[in-house]
């Protein structure tokens, strides 16, 4: 048999060419996400809000914790938003610049949301993956604990914690961290149960890999998609929780402020005939929630294997 020289040269050509690049799961997800206009819009909005929260203090000539005593108590007449005075969003009744205060509040709210969601990701993923992978009685006990904790009216317990141990940002994180991981643990456990009988896990077991290494190296990476989706959807929930508590005046003590506290302040002074100190925090709260909602939704469409 003599191979035709044409065939041979075609083969050589093909060997010389670059390998066809495979599309990874993540690249696939990214292209799906980018095609989703609402999600991209949400992401851009989120970036703008973050930039505002971080940069406003440097742009404005005013500080978030010093009041303008000339305007204090006369916000309705003197505190209107104006470009010339540098009070872009106006001045509230205590003489604080709304532009800077809202930026500061947004920053705290975003911070709380991200930290709360990060705690949920770390604790919830490890807890759920361990319970699901180990299985049996350990799983039952671990999930029963989650059931019991989930039945506790957490908003009340959170306020209880804050009142008893001081209304600090740190305590807020501890409280939110204690409670936020529960539903994440449930979701992760469910996913782990369906993963743990797959061949690649059996292969790892057969090769003698210890259980903790299987969980960290083989289970957790395969959960990242769904964890990322729920983490994104948790952030606005955390912001909502924190704003709820701050709205009641039970959040972190001043001068630390957050969107919830600012909304409460603005609502308290709206009957004096001006709205700018309500409008700004309300708008940023609603926009942040919208943005996270759309990004989370887009991520779910892009990453959730169920929808494929």
């Amino acid at each position, binding site marked *: 048999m003599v191979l035709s020289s044409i065939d041979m040269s075609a083969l050589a050509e093909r060997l010389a060419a670059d390998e066809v690049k495979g599309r990874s799961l993540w690249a696939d997800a990214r292209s799906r996400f980018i095609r989703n206009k609402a999600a991209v819009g949400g992401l851009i909005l989120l970036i703008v809000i973050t930039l505002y929260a971080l940069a406003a203090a440097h742009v404005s000539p005013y500080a978030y914790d010093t009041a303008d005593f000339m305007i204090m108590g006369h916000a309705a007449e003197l505190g209107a938003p104006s470009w010339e005075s540098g009070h872009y969003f106006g001045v509230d009744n205590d003489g604080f610049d709304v532009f800077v205060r809202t930026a500061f509040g947004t920053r705290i709210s975003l911070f709380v949301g991200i930290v709360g969601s990060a705690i949920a990701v770390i604790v919830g993923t490890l807890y759920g993956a361990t319970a699901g992978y180990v299985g049996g009685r350990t799983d039952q006990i671990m999930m*029963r604990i989650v*059931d*019991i904790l989930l*039945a*506790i*009216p957490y*908003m*009340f*317990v959170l*306020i*209880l*914690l804050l*009142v*008893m*141990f*001081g209304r600090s940002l740190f305590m807020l994180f501890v409280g939110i961290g204690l409670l936020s991981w529960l539903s994440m643990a449930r979701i992760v456990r469910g996913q782990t149960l369906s993963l743990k009988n797959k061949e690649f896990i059996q292969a790892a077991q057969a090769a003698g890999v210890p259980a903790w290494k299987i969980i960290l190296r083989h289970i957790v990476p395969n959960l990242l998609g769904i964890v990322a989706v729920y983490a994104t959807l948790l952030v*606005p929930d955390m912001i*909502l929780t924190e*704003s*709820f508590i701050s*709205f*009641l*005046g*039970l959040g972190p003590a001043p001068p630390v402020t957050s969107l*919830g506290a600012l*909304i*409460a302040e*603005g*609502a308290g002074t*709206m*009957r004096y005939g001006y*709205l700018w100190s*309500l409008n700004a925090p*309300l708008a940023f*709260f*609603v926009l942040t*929630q*919208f943005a996270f*909602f759309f990004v989370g939704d887009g991520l779910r469409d892009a990453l959730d294997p169920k929808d494929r």
Partner: protein
Amino acid sequence: MFSYIIKRLVVAIPTLLVLMVLSFLLMHAAPGGPFTYEKKLPPEVLANLNAKYGLDQPLWRQMVSYVWGIIAHFDFGPSFVYKDRDVNEIIAQGFPVTLYYGSIAFVVAVVTGVTLGVVAAVRQNSLIDYFAVGLSIGAQVLPNFVMAPVLVLVFALWLGWLPAGGWEGGEISHVILPVIALATSYMASIARITRSSMLEVLTSNHVRTARAKGLPEHKVILRHALKPSLIPVISYLGPAFVAMITGSVVVDSFFSTGGIGKAFVDSALNRDYAVMMGITLLVGVLTIIFNLLVDILYAWIDPKIRY
């Protein structure tokens, strides 16, 4: 069915005990006692006060007597701030108010939410469907503490139709705004859940059969499609109920309706631990009972569940 209820109770009781013990321990782990004022009390006075409230006994005995008091006589102990009132009185004063507008809000949220969801699903891609879908995104961004100021601004300050607050024994004009503030976001969630499950049910075989045998459309919807599509809604009722009580904290503070939420915030600001714990436990008990009822309802309506 009976053994199912027993099984659920077996989970509910330890949950309650955990809640009681946890909140009791929390209270004792807190720095400073209920009698820590800015001005220091003489040690004898403090000792007498502690003896009166039983705070001089060992921790486990206090805990046992507190938990026993609740179980045996539904007694949450005295308030630490108001010398002449105990926790029961404070709860008894505010709770009926909360229950009154809370249950109205709950019913409003469920009825309008389900109706909107069903209509949206039946008339998919119509104007009302777009409204329902838009509203369900609004659920995320219109929590009670956003709704409350906006409602007061529009209906009390601009239009002057409704009072901005107060209770007046539950007069209807004082109830409307709290109910709307409380119900909106949950109505939207329920509408979303109903819509998506209704859409799924409408493509199922038994609905096609019902249509094929010539039933009028409204009978197909009401008799054959509605019941299975309500199953996911029922599992949402538990969280929605808890949210009504939690939301009452905001409503009571903002509208001065004088419900239990106001008592909770006041006691939080006064550091009146006994009242806070009493209310937290009450909410916990209600939550657990309500979830139990929902589970039973669920098992009853969904034949696929075996218990």
